[in-house]
């Protein structure tokens, strides 16, 4: 709606004027608002319900494979998620320890209600940020309908803004489904968002519909944990926040364990007998669900050869008995859910506190966005999180910080900030969404990153903290700390390369333990660390001169040395990638004039209008042969221009 029209509405009044208005206070919205306020902009953050700000409506954990890397990246850029998660962690583990450092992924169980409390308090304390409980029903624009100008609440309050960031999560026109029972509601029984998706549709933004789901919660008092497999946290796991890591932050001593069980033949039987009541299979659910986080009935249907699946029983906090059944999400009716839970070992008498449900919601077509997450249809409008088709708290937050930064850059008339695929998982995530789009809730996986040996959780700061500092989200003090870490790692690497030791009994003992051959002559410490099975720590007895270093520095040095050769290869790949990314496509290109492009490619390119050939090459429907044609066209264009 035009701002001028809104002002003439009955009961309408101007409630405020802001640089940036952020709609939705989930993980994307909180990061976006935090970034804007930190950059000195007058910011307002709207939420449907203040008590659900930064809610964890699904799993009570943050991080995990690929997601943990994103949390580290957000922190490296100067975001907030990592710090709050560190403070609310009740258990922490590093996943994939046996599979190589590129895929090491930190994951922490959260105290769910505390996460909300801490995040809310941090944002309340933030100067320049106002938080408002309100139901936003309209996006307001200028008279041309192509420039965002603010938002309006259902009660007619108008908030003018230079830029608007919408992070509506799963709330737009949502409905929850349990078997035959369908309720117009947001997640966790919260109110849904009405009208906003229509308001976007009227402006020409394509609206899609997805589905996701969540499992039941049970009371631990009714559960027999003694028959389950216990899974404890780790004390030697670094925190998410680099700040905390450098300042010697310690994880809580009293970490709370998780538990795991396997489904039984009875579980399978219950599901099989009730499949006709599944809304997914009866056609009630039309939204498309996530392939990588399927409901349990989906798992049985799709992996017919597997007769059992693992279920994790996770605590939801220190002050509650509520436990979350990870891997047991379902949209089957409540009465079937009870039978299903009772078929699990140790859960025969479990009392369910919240039912599982599937939820359908409106979202936008993410290929209408620029890599800054600004809409190409309405300028000054940014979107982040599930509204863009992603799934997961971390994916949402990663987009949130980028949308927030770019909304701020827009208002400040500064250069936009684009994180590319070789800089971070956040870059991979956003590029995938805006270039390829997604036809199911998009979950980040390490396999989506081409350069994951380089995109590690331990070096997220060296990749992104300089970017955060440049933007202004990382203050000088923290940047100095970062530079000190990098320089001491550099010095230590040099020292290890230049320190040669001769064969001694002590060295032989270390080598024997690792099953490594004895060197023929003197060797550098660095070359020993490169050998399989030999760690920096293990060499302590033959390296008396070593300086006292932080754990983080040691880890960086060790990984850099061990993987030096492989990293070099990765950097070569990145260089090749950058070449293609730097072949810019003229902004005014007329694709119909590029002879030799296939019609499908021509249409896709014209719709997505990529900035460079690298992005063009990743559009589905644009073949390498089309890119060849495009490259030749651009080259000819360039040559004839000179």
């Amino acid at each position, binding site marked *: 709606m035009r701002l001028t029209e809104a002002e003439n509405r009955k009961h309408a009044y101007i409630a405020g004027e802001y640089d940036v208005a952020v709609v939705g206070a989930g993980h994307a919205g909180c990061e976006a608002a935090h970034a804007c306020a930190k950059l000195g902009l007058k910011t307002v953050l709207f939420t449907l319900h203040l008590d659900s700000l930064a809610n964890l409506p699904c799993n009570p954990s943050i991080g995990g494979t690929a997601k943990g890397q994103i949390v580290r990246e957000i922190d490296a850029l100067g975001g907030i998620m990592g710090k709050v998660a560190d403070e609310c962690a009740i258990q922490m583990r590093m996943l994939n320890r046996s599979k190589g450092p590129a895929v090491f992924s930190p994951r922490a169980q959260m105290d769910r209600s505390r996460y909300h409390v801490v995040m809310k308090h941090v944002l309340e304390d933030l100067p320049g940020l106002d938080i408002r409980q309100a139901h936003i029903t309209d996006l307001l624009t200028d008279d041309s309908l192509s420039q965002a100008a603010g938002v309006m609440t259902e009660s007619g309050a108008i908030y003018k803004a230079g830029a608007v960031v919408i992070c509506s999560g799963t709330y737009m026109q949502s409905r929850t489904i349990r078997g035959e029972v369908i309720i117009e509601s947001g997640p966790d029984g919260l109110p849904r968002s009405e009208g906003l998706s229509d308001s976007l549709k009227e402006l020409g933004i394509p609206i899609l519909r997805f589905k996701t789901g969540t499992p039941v919660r049970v009371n631990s008092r009714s559960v027999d944990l003694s028959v389950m497999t216990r899974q404890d946290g780790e004390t030697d796991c670094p925190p998410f926040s680099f700040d905390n890591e450098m300042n010697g932050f310690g994880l809580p001593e009293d970490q709370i364990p998780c538990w795991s069980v396997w489904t039984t033949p009875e579980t399978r039987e219950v599901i099989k007998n009730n499949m006709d009541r599944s809304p997914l299979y009866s056609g009630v659910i039309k939204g498309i669900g996530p392939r990588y986080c399927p409901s349990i009935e989906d798992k049985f249907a799709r992996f017919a050869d597997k007769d059992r699946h*693992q279920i994790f029983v996770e605590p939801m906090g220190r002050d509650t008995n509520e436990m979350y059944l990870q891997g047991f999400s379902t949209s089957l009716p409540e009465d079937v859910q009870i039978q299903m839970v009772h078929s699990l070992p140790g859960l025969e008498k479990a009392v369910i506190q919240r039912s599982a449900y599937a939820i359908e919601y409106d979202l936008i077509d993410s290929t209408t966005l620029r890599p800054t997450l600004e809409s190409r249809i309405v300028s000054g409008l940014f979107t982040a999180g599930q509204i863009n088709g992603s799934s997961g708290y971390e994916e949402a937050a990663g987009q949130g910080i980028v949308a927030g930064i770019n909304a701020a850059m827009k208002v400040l008339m500064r250069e936009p900030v684009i994180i590319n695929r070789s800089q971070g998982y956040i870059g991979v995530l956003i590029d995938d969404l805006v270039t390829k789009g997604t036809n199911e809730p998009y979950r980040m996986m390490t396999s989506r990153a081409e350069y994951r040996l380089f995109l590690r959780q331990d070096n997220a700061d060296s990749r992104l903290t300089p970017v955060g500092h440049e933007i202004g989200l990382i203050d000088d003090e923290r940047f100095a700390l970062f530079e000190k870490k990098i320089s001491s790692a550099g010095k230590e690497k040099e020292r290890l390369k230049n320190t040669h030791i001769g064969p001694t009994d002590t060295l032989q003992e270390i080598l024997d333990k690792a099953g490594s051959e004895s060197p023929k002559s003197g060797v550098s410490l660095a070359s020993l660390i490169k050998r399989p099975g030999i760690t920096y720590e293990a060499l302590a007895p033959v390296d008396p001169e070593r300086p006292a270093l932080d754990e983080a520095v040691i880890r960086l040095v060790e990984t850099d040395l061990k993987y030096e050769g492989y990293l070099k*290869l990765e950097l070569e790949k990145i260089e090749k990638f950058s070449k293609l990314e730097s072949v810019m496509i003229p902004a005014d290109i007329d694709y119909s004039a590029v002879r030799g492009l296939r019609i499908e490619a021509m249409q896709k390119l014209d719709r997505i209008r990529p900035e460079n050939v690298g992005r063009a090459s990743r559009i589905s429907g644009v073949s*390498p042969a089309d890119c060849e044609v495009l490259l030749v066209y651009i080259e000819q264009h360039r040559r004839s221009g000179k």
Partner: protein
Amino acid sequence: MISQDNGMFCAVSTPAGTSGIAVIRISGQNVSAVIDGAVRIIRSSGDYKRVSEMPGYTCCFADFNNPSDGSLIDKVVITRFEAPFSYTGDEMVEISCHGSAAVKKKILDVLYSLNIRSAGPGEFTKTAFMNGKMSLTSAEAVMDIISADSSEMLRAANVISAGGLNEKLEEIESSLYDMMARIEMDVDFDDDESEEYGASRCCRETLSEVLVKIDGITDTYRQGRMLSEKMRVAFTGIPNSGKSTLLNRIAGYDRSIVTDISGTTTDTIEAVSEIEGIPVILTDTAGIRQTSNIIESMGVDRARKEYGRSDLIFYLVSPDTTVEQARDQIHDIRAMAPSDSEAVILFNKADIGPNPHEEQIRLAARGYGVEKFINISASTGENTAEVRKAIKDHYDSMGSSGGELILTSRRHYEILSRASARLREALKALEDNAGLDVVSSITRAALDLTGEISGKTVSADLARTIFDKFCIGK
């Protein structure tokens, strides 16, 4: 004055020289209208009067006239192809005329006068590529077919053009993709399901199998290189041992001056020929001997350099060759020549009588691992067929069990060699327990390489390559 290029070009598409019929091809937007004035249609299946009115894919019988004075040049058959369904993707006309040089020249002159310029090398194919009619790989193969100057090369180029290489690459790529999928499953999902997907074992098996396949392809380049860059065959020996005479006999025409004065061939002389279907560059090197003559000694240096790039070296022994000379020179050859090259000793002038040192020289040669000896007479031609056969034998000995496919492109060979080196690194990383993430990263790098041939990888350098290859624009 630089005129704007109108994109119209023509060329005689049949071989040079006189033939019964020749075909002249013209490509460019609206070319038919441009030649209307030169053509008078005599007979056709339709009632049209002009080439530009001809329906596509029909032909007509016509007079081809000189439009300036209306004089008849030739009676021709004209075929018209409509854009974009032509070879180049632009409108095309083909003129079948009589194959005399004079007719072809006169028709071309008319076309030039109509501002249809002469086609550059490979321009029809280049235009087809630019118009999206074919991928770079196909265009490359077509260029190879066009430039194939031996029957074996043509056969190899046809196999590649028909997708022989892509088929093998696809097989390789698909096993590597499957392997990566196993790794990803293990890395991204195993933590939740904590089940062993056996990714490491799967990787080891796949990598080993794929390496055998890639090496099988790159091995064929030993022959392929001899086809695309031609097999280098050197004739050497003391001055006046009959090298030039033999070369001329093998090559079939007088390429170098043959005299009786010792040391006539002071430079490396080359002759290009096709022997038993194999393209060869025959070189007649300066006779090796210690010399004070500066020009001659430069020739000797060139001869040594020639050994270094020869595939096959014939060392000619004449009755005048001493055992010491033979021993020194065979030593020289073995020291300079590449390890997979072959040396053959030819006892020349067999017509004069048996060589007095034959047994001793054979013994000395065996000491250097040279096992092949032929008694010939270059002047009478006795046994020179055996020399031709030795050339073919050497080519055959470089063959592998790769089947029909022979890799002929240096670019393909280099890319596949690099991919193979990468996969070896991946295997090593697996053995070193470096982590599946590393294995997958290296494998991806290898796939990026094979994709440069199969057309799955887009490279920014590509435009430059194409511009270099087809000399497009300025």
